[in-house]
């Protein structure tokens, strides 16, 4: 597709995840092997409870696997400290969640500035970057100082995309981003993901159980009972 198709961004080797609740161990992921290349638009599908979010949390460095190795841009991140993982999330990964996950107390622009705030970018500069990101997802300037509950769900999710790309993340991870949107808004949102993928060559990993949504991606896997069953 494009020139850097061969550059590996993510490589999972024999990843396993066991949740321990009291005396019960639940094996949510079993021997996951996966390679994702730079600029790919990748979808993970599967039934509810199959382990998609568990996989996504590991990919997003929010959680660590109980076994196996995870290489993110050739760095083994499966055993890093929590602070180091926070740093990686800040620099390399942008998240878009099903529930939007904007901080309600903060204005829209402040929400978008947040990753830059933790990166130590001066506020003036952060503000400029946040405005740029918001323009990219078609959020008008006059809505910047609104609070999340003052805009629609579709707009909130676009703000979340702006927050995901504001720090020039190389990977965007979206876990059921259209789960709370109707089909018109879903398509609209997906077209923004496509635009970012096309224009900025950002790797996008999308979790969804809707085939229409998954259709925006160019590569697909299906997870079932903690296994990858289909490529």
């Amino acid at each position, binding site marked *: 597709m494009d020139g850097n198709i061969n550059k590996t961004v993510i490589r999972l080797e024999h990843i396993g995840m066991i949740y321990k609740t009291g005396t019960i161990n639940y094996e949510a992921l079993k021997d996951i092997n996966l390679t994702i290349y730079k600029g790919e638009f990748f979808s993970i599908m599967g039934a509810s409870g199959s382990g998609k979010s568990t996989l996504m949390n590991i990919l997003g460095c929010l959680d660590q696997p109980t076994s196996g190795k995870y290489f993110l841009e050739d760095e083994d991140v499966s055993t890093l400290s929590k602070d180091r993982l926070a*740093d990686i*999330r800040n620099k390399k990964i942008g998240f878009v969640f099903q529930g939007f996950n904007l901080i309600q107390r903060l204005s829209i622009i402040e929400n978008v500035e947040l990753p830059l705030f933790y990166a130590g970018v001066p506020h003036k500069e952060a503000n400029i970057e946040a405005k740029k990101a918001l323009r990219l997802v078609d959020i008008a300037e006059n809505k910047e100082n609104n609070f999340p509950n003052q805009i629609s769900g579709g707009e909130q999710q676009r703000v979340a995309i702006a927050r995901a790309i504001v720090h020039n993340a190389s990977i965007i991870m979206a876990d059921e981003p259209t789960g709370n949107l109707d089909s018109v808004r879903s398509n609209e949102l997906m077209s923004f993901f496509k635009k970012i993928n096309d224009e900025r060559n950002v790797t996008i990993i999308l979790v969804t159980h809707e085939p229409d949504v998954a259709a925006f991606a160019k590569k697909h896997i299906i997870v079932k009972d903690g296994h990858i069953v289909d490529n």
Partner: protein
Amino acid sequence: MKFPILLDIQSAFKTFARNKARSFLTTLGIIIGVASVIATVSIGQGASASVQNAINALGSNLLIILPGSSNLGGVQTGFGELSTLTLQDAKAIRKLPAVKTDAANIRMNEQVIWRGNNWGTSVMGTSSTFPVIKKWPVTKGEFFDKQQDDTAANVAVIGTTVATQLFGLMNPVGHIVLIHNVPFKIIGELKAIGFNAFGQDQDDIVAIPITTMMEKIAGISWVNIIMVSAKSKKDTGLAQNQITALLRQRHHIPPHKPNDFYVRNLTQIAQTAGSSAQIFTILLAAVAAVSLLVGGIGIMNIMLVSVTERTKEIGIRMAVGAKKNDILKQFLIESSVLSLFGGVLGIGLGVGISDLISLISPLHTILTIEPIIISIIFSVAVGVFFGFYPAYKASNLNPVEALRYE
């Protein structure tokens, strides 16, 4: 990975602005604690300053002789409770070589009689310089002069309480009263000055020349307090020894028995006043500690609620790159700003209360910068200390679980 702390402080203020009532109620403990400390310290400092002023006004070579037994193990609580000193003792003390013959003050409790009325008061034998030394002028008539003092004239100057009790609204000047069966002509009335720092009515007094007291009041007259001056400052110790020896001899006290009187010099009095001020300060510190503890627990409580309420926010912040210390710092700053805010309000309230006390009560309050600075430092310290546990809890949340929290 550094960003200006100002942004955190600004964000803390925004948080409180969105929850004004709760923030105010949370800091109420700190507000009341700090306000009570400021107000009580200002009362304490006012009281100790007026005690110091009173002591300084007496002069540095002053000696005070009080009745009382030193084996009672303490300073007597009020005047006139024990009767061991007589007017004859006072006369003898005045003749000692190390003691100045003028400038003395003797007080005894006596009945003052005018026609059918009589009133028990403190009769003070003093000299003509009294109004000047004490800065206590007469408002009606005049004070006795040096000549009346020298000739032991039967004249008296009365305080307003005595005037009101005996004469009601009449002008007392010119009337004759009986004290210890001796007739005295009232020649003046002292200006009303009210109660002193110990709650005694200072206007309940009759001043007569000390010479008259010594020469004309016969029989056994119990004395409450004798104040004399040593000839010079360096004679103070000598005078003290002479007085002690004289009184032991006059009271026939055998060598192994303790004194039945006290002789105190100014240094000893100042020390006593100082040590009671110290006890007062320790008590205040204890009250302050308890109220700040209560205030701190209030802050900890609300910060724990806040951390729980904002679990999702913490998860989001962590997802976009906040580290443990970033979260810790955010909540510590919030709790410190909250308690500092309480401290500042408390100082305002405390200053107001202190001024009000000065205005509407006889107590004189003194505000200094120290308790204000200490209050500010303390309230921030309380915020950091009691905010630490909630902040630590927040910073240790697991990002996946925090994000899932609804």
